[in-house]
């Protein structure tokens, strides 16, 4: 078989992906970038308006509220999810009987569809009858109205985000199992305690995994949509839970402002890019690769 023939076969096998990429990703990307400079309502020809959509975003109070909500959510949800996922992964890395069952149980919540999850949490966080408040009252607290109070609604979403940490937990678990056992044995010989082993062996050794998961969590948090959309329609109460993606969706499909929504999409991309670059930059001193 000559090399040209091999290349042809290779391209043929890659063709479904190439077509999918060009038609379903590259074309919409370019189209949305162009659309972001237009006034476009789907049914009429787009009209070029230059940077107007981007300029309007800067003075749009609702957009700024949604952006602020999303960033606060990210600041809360990403560290919480990361700490929880690492802690659970460490527990699941222990050598105890029945570990397969524990692992399955802790991963199961990840499989619950978002809408079902949101509906479930509407009951868990119900201010009057909710399980959480019943428990808090049981131990003498005067619990807040998680869903109806603007001061607490965002915290509700942040807490719910922790529910989906199973995916990250699994990746951390894989990372933990790659940490060479001899490092722990050497530390044991030196009389290191659990915290020291965690601080000086475990966390540095899984730091590339932490970086990966944190970046994925930032992307997911900036794009959060389904759960707040179901639990807090319109960002109620008083837009305290109105997220970036919800406002983007409303502009595109409720107000038919596709150009404006596209501009929002590109601003979202730039924010994610900036945060990702910042995370990579910050990680330079803290992430340790085995090849280094």
């Amino acid at each position, binding site marked *: 078989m000559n090399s040209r023939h091999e290349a042809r076969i290779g391209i043929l096998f890659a063709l479904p992906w190439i077509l999918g990429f060009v038609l379903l990703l590259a074309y919409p990307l370019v189209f949305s970038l162009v659309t972001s400079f237009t*006034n476009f309502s*789907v*049914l009429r020809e787009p009209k070029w308006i230059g940077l107007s959509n981007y300029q309007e975003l800067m*003075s749009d*109070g609702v957009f700024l509220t949604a952006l602020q909500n999303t960033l606060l959510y990210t600041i809360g949800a990403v560290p919480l999810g990361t700490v929880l996922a690492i802690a659970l992964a460490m527990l699941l890395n222990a050598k105890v009987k029945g570990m397969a069952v524990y692992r399955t149980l802790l991963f199961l919540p990840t499989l619950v569809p978002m809408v079902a999850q949101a509906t479930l949490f509407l009951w868990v966080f119900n201010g009057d009858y909710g399980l959480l408040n019943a428990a808090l009252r049981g131990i003498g607290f005067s619990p807040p109205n998680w869903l109806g*109070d603007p001061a607490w609604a965002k915290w509700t979403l942040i807490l719910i985000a922790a529910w989906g940490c199973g995916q990250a937990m699994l990746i951390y678990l894989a990372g933990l199992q790659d940490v060479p056992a001899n490092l722990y044995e050497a530390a044991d010989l030196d009389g290191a305690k659990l915290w020291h082993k965690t601080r000086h062996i475990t966390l540095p050794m899984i730091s590339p995994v932490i970086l990966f998961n944190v970046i994925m969590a930032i992307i997911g948090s900036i794009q959060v949509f389904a759960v707040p959309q179901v639990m807090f329609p319109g960002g109620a*109460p*008083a837009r305290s839970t109105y997220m970036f993606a919800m406002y983007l969706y409303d502009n595109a499909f409720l107000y038919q402002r596709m150009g404006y929504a596209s501009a929002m999409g590109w601003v979202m991309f730039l924010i994610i890019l900036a945060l990702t670059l910042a995370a990579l930059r910050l990680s330079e001193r803290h992430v340790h690769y085995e090849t280094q």
Partner: protein
Amino acid sequence: MRPQSKLALLIVLILTVGAAVLGERVVSREASPGRVTVVYWEKWTGQEGEEMRKVVDAFNRSQDRIFVKYLSISGVDQKTILASGGGNPPDVAGIWQEQVFQFADLGALTDLTAMANAAGLTRDYYIPAYYDALSEGETLWALPSTPASIGLHVRPDLVPSEVATPETFPETIEELDALNDRISKQNADGSLVMAGFLPSNPGWWHWGWGPLFGADLFKGGNPTLNGPETVRAFEWIARYSKKFGPQAVQNFQSGFGNFASPQDPFMTGKVATEINGVWKANYIRVYQPDLKWFAVPMPYPKDRPDLKGHSLLSQDVLVIPRGAKRAKEAFEFIAFVQRQDVMEGLCSAHGKNSPLNEVSEAFFENHPNKAIRLFDQLARSPNAIYPSRSGFFPRVSGELANAFQEVNTGLKTPKQALDDAQARIDGLWKTYREQVARS
């Protein structure tokens, strides 16, 4: 070419041809040979969807030239816009009244005026407010499928006996407030046990509070959210959250069940009165058939007796999207739905009032809602109002809903909340007008 390659090529060819042939059959619009197929997308599901299906079946049986292909789908508004953009819209779409002018401003609708006039479906055929809500100047954009009017529902067992009939129930806002103060129950810790009335329940018509006090939300053609009447309405709303405490109202309301369930607060007795539509009786009939209730017009401000008989109107409507391939045949179906016997059958099955000017006595007598005459009268009231005829209305409604929440949760004073809403809407209104003018 190797035999394996030939075989692979043959399989690919067979699959491609098969997909093309079967695909054409799957997406074909022609549902019945020899008849013109009209594609109808409707938002209703469940029982309401089934009742409309019966109308479609009756139309299909009534003649042999047109076949209506009925599809009950979710997100009908967005899908209709996108399908129109793609050049393949349905021939008829069932949307909501408040979207009609948004669609019209986008150029998404077919003008029905000439076809409706030719079919005798003119303003005098309908209760005027229902027809007016769908037309602008000389242009008619939609016709009703089922309408509704809204009144105050009352539990006679939860109010004092002297006001426990439609004839003796308070007529003014001030009397309603006094009744609320008298019958609402709070525990020593401030938590609510029963509210006489709550403006935040069910929370579907926050745009309607200003007009209840006489506001015009599009004064002089411009969105006006902070007019004195609307500020007065929101001060009245704030009175309720102040009286009970914003936290107490939020906690109380978070325990309300879904309106389409036995946990509905009106049915469970958490609220003694509730503003709701003619359809409320359907749910009571299903979930609490023995419940005692009656309905009255929403009370009016004492110093504005001219606003007596206030009601909010809404409609489910039928439109022909722009670019529909069978517009003429589609209108034949829409005209069939407007026939008095068909319309009364559908409205009765949906538990709604009729949008038509002429209503048969049998409709009233056989209607499942015992208060149907009241809802019919409310629709005919000069103080019956409908969502503003502007494509910008959804933004106005959204801003008023947000202002309501800010007031109800005690975040802002009524004036602050409405001034902020006005400031936001002014910017959006300018952009909207430019966009409509540009397009």
